[in-house]
């Protein structure tokens, strides 16, 4: 109850701050600017470089999930002046603390005898990070993994990783190493590759030695975003075999408000043939013009922001994913160059708001087949979105923002001797504004044969969560 009271208090605080900073009269100040948009709940324009007085709430999440038992989760993160961001996350038995500055990130977490630590340091031309995980149980072994990314040329990072295990069962300390690269050219081309070796302890009497090479490319070509990747993995052990994996994916805008998605992924083995496949297709209709993440002004601005940050001695990559953009903006807002970069940070935010996706109607189909588990599934998904201000889905509105979104899913899984299990899921997302959502999820899942064997019956899950994310 105390936890719930705290959550309610914080929710009220966040809501009160939004209300206090933005009155109805503050809206429609600048046509086309984020502040000109109307949300169901008024939202203040975020001040990314504001120091907080002395704290500024950046994240607040609370949720519960109930299947056979109930799990509560809570997370909060605050900005402490210009010093950094401090966060705490609780989920079931797990606890996590985080601290972040523009160069440093550290976290420590634990649950039921297992502990983990993570740290990273962003120097001007390299990024050093590492994790340490202590497994529970009598062995008390540690899994350690340092990573070093070095900027060798503009847009080109070389990345080396390794991991070791102090456990006796592992047999040797060094368990894996890899070397790879990431090359970003503008917003429209990205290339990544890696060569990796690993020595995998099995539950049997043998060890599997793996070596793998992978290459992936992502390109924005006209109205389409295309990605393709492939890998070859060779395994030496009790059985020796080679697996080849490939995937292609395409997203394209057809006209201003229609997006098509398609993709295929397959893995095959040298002597056995295809062992797993996934196919996906989707069509989405938007309430306002839609842009792919690497094709618009937001992408151009993100590239410029990253370039200017790098010029100031910060190790930053070009970010196109909303979460990555937000995290980058938070780091830059803590740096000594925050005022110099604040204009571009704001421009990026405004571009993101200007290119916001407001889906009205979407359909998706996904088919999977896996030889190892002998599972075949087909999933159908449908999305219905109601924009704010409400309007008919076929009528576009330039000032539309996401408001209500209903996601429906039906998955049919065939396993074993043709046994069929159906899963239904329903999700309702209520966006009060750009920073604040209320989410409800419900699902009903018929037991699979493995569930029946394990004595597990039908699963009914109810989830409810509240999310506040400053500057999203």
């Amino acid at each position, binding site marked *: 109850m105390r936890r719930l009271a705290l959550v309610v208090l914080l929710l009220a605080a966040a809501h009160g701050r939004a209300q206090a900073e933005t009155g109805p009269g503050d809206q429609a100040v600048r046509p086309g600017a984020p502040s000109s948009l109307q949300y169901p709940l008024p939202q203040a324009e975020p001040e990314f470089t504001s120091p907080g007085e002395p704290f500024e709430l950046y994240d607040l999440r609370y949720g519960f999930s109930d299947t056979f038992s109930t799990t509560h989760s809570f997370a909060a993160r605050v900005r402490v002046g210009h010093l950094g961001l401090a966060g705490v996350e609780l989920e079931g038995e797990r606890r996590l603390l985080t601290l972040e500055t523009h160069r440093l990130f550290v976290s420590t977490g634990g649950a039921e005898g297992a502990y983990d630590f993570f740290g990273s340091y962003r120097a001007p031309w390299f990024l050093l990070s590492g994790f340490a995980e202590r497994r529970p149980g009598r062995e008390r072994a540690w899994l350690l993994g340092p990573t070093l990314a070095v900027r060798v040329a503009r847009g080109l990072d070389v990345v080396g990783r390794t991991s070791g295990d102090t456990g006796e069962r592992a047999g040797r300390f060094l368990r894996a190493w890899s070397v790879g690269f990431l090359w970003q050219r503008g917003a429209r081309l990205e290339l990544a590759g890696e060569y990796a070796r690993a020595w995998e302890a099995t539950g049997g009497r043998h060890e599997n030695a793996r070596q793998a090479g992978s290459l992936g490319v992502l390109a924005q070509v006209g109205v389409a975003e295309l990605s393709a990747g492939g890998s070859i993995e060779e395994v030496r052990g009790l059985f020796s075999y080679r697996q080849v994996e490939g995937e292609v994916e395409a997203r394209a805008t057809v006209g201003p408000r229609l997006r098509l998605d398609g993709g295929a992924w397959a893995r095959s083995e040298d002597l056995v043939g295809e062992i797993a496949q996934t196919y996906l297709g989707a069509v989405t209709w938007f309430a306002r013009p839609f842009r792919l993440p690497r094709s618009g002004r937001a992408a151009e601005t993100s590239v410029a922001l990253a370039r200017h940050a790098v010029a100031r001695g910060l190790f930053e990559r070009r970010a196109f994913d909303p979460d990555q953009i937000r995290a980058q903006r938070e780091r830059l807002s803590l740096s000594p160059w925050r005022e110099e970069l604040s204009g571009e940070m704001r421009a990026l935010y405004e571009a993101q708001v200007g290119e916001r996706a407001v889906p009205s109607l979407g359909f998706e189909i996904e088919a999977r087949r896996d030889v190892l588990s002998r599972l075949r599934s087909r999933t159908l998904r449908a999305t219905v979105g109601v924009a704010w201000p409400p309007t008919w889905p076929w009528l576009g509105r330039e000032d539309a923002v996401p408001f209500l979104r209903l996601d429906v899913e039906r998955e049919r899984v065939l*396993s074993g001797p043709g046994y069929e299990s159906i899963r239904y899921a329903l999700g309702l997302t209520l966006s009060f504004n750009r920073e604040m959502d209320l989410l409800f999820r419900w699902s009903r899942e018929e037991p699979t044969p493995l569930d029946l064997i394990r004595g597990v019956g039908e699963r009914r899950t109810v989830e409810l969560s509240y999310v506040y994310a400053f500057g999203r």
Partner: protein
Amino acid sequence: MADSIDRRGFLDRAAGAWIGLSSRTVQGGAGSTGWTAGSTAAHAAVDPEGAPILPPRVNGGINIQPVRRLDMPGREEGLVIAPELVALQLQAVYALGFDAIRITAPHGDRRNFLAAVPYVRAARALGIDALVVLSNFAGFTSARVLWDAQQRRRHLELYDRVFTPPPPPAGTGEPGLARVGEVALQILNEPTLFFAVPPDVYVREILRPSYEALKRIHPGLTVVSAADVGTPEGVPRVRAMFDAGLEDACDRIAYHVYDRSLIPLLSPSVRNAVWITESGAEGTSRHLGWVRETFPEIQARIPGVSRIFYFQLFDTDPGRFRLIDIEPEGASYRAVVESVDLHAHFAANVSRAAGGDPLLPFEVLVPDVRAYFPTAEDAEAYDGVFLG
């Protein structure tokens, strides 16, 4: 693996199935189920000078089904096991020189569980080993009770109590029958196909705990792992079973081989004794070639193989895997050889190994197969576990 699923449904369809014509017949009747004289090489040329001998066990193992009746009444009352059917199948196993049978005794299926009893006991009385498969023809009961720590031990004790006590040797006083057959237990059949249990889950959550429980109940008992499907599709799953610790969770590792291209894929994995618990070819015309060419290839390329069980003696699907058919004849039944060439091959192997000595007829050793039928104690033991 539609074939495998079809095989599983055999018992459900067994009753009343139409049985096709065949080229040679063997007669059988209640309590007297002798092969028709001259119908097989095993019964040819009795040397009046020599003492009759047991058919030499030269043809490896064979899969049989716990068939108890071929008619199917609308509603079945009580337990009906037609002794002629048991005798016909066992006579074929005996006469054709098989050294082991593999038979399923399904959990939660009282009639078929008890129907497996006379096959196992009579075979063992004849000196033939028996591999009893703890599995189901329908449903997931076997996997369920073997996964559940609360139920596992009681169910394994039931199998130990019913199937492992050795019967008295058949035909006491006959030469060569001092030994009764051994028994081994196999934990499920093709678990991913029939139970949708992933290979690592099978090893960690079903096989290993069952193995450990059985070793506490009966330390000397041989425990055999389940095999995966005998086609290349099964290789990744076999691999996953090894990765999950298969070698330390059983006494024998089982493979099924229905595709020759599988053989080189399995060969490097052997570090333990391997049993091929099913191998055969679909299509009667392919049977002989499969046994003559593939069985030696398996032996040569999978060095750890110590047993191969041919799939299979009898089912109700004509022209596919079965060696013989069984037809009603009056109030009794008769066996009809369907896979003529393979049958002759097995019989010739026996005859050659016998060196012209006369063979002891089955009915001399087993004058009445009902002596091996399940007892009231067997039924009580079953009911005590399943009905509580």
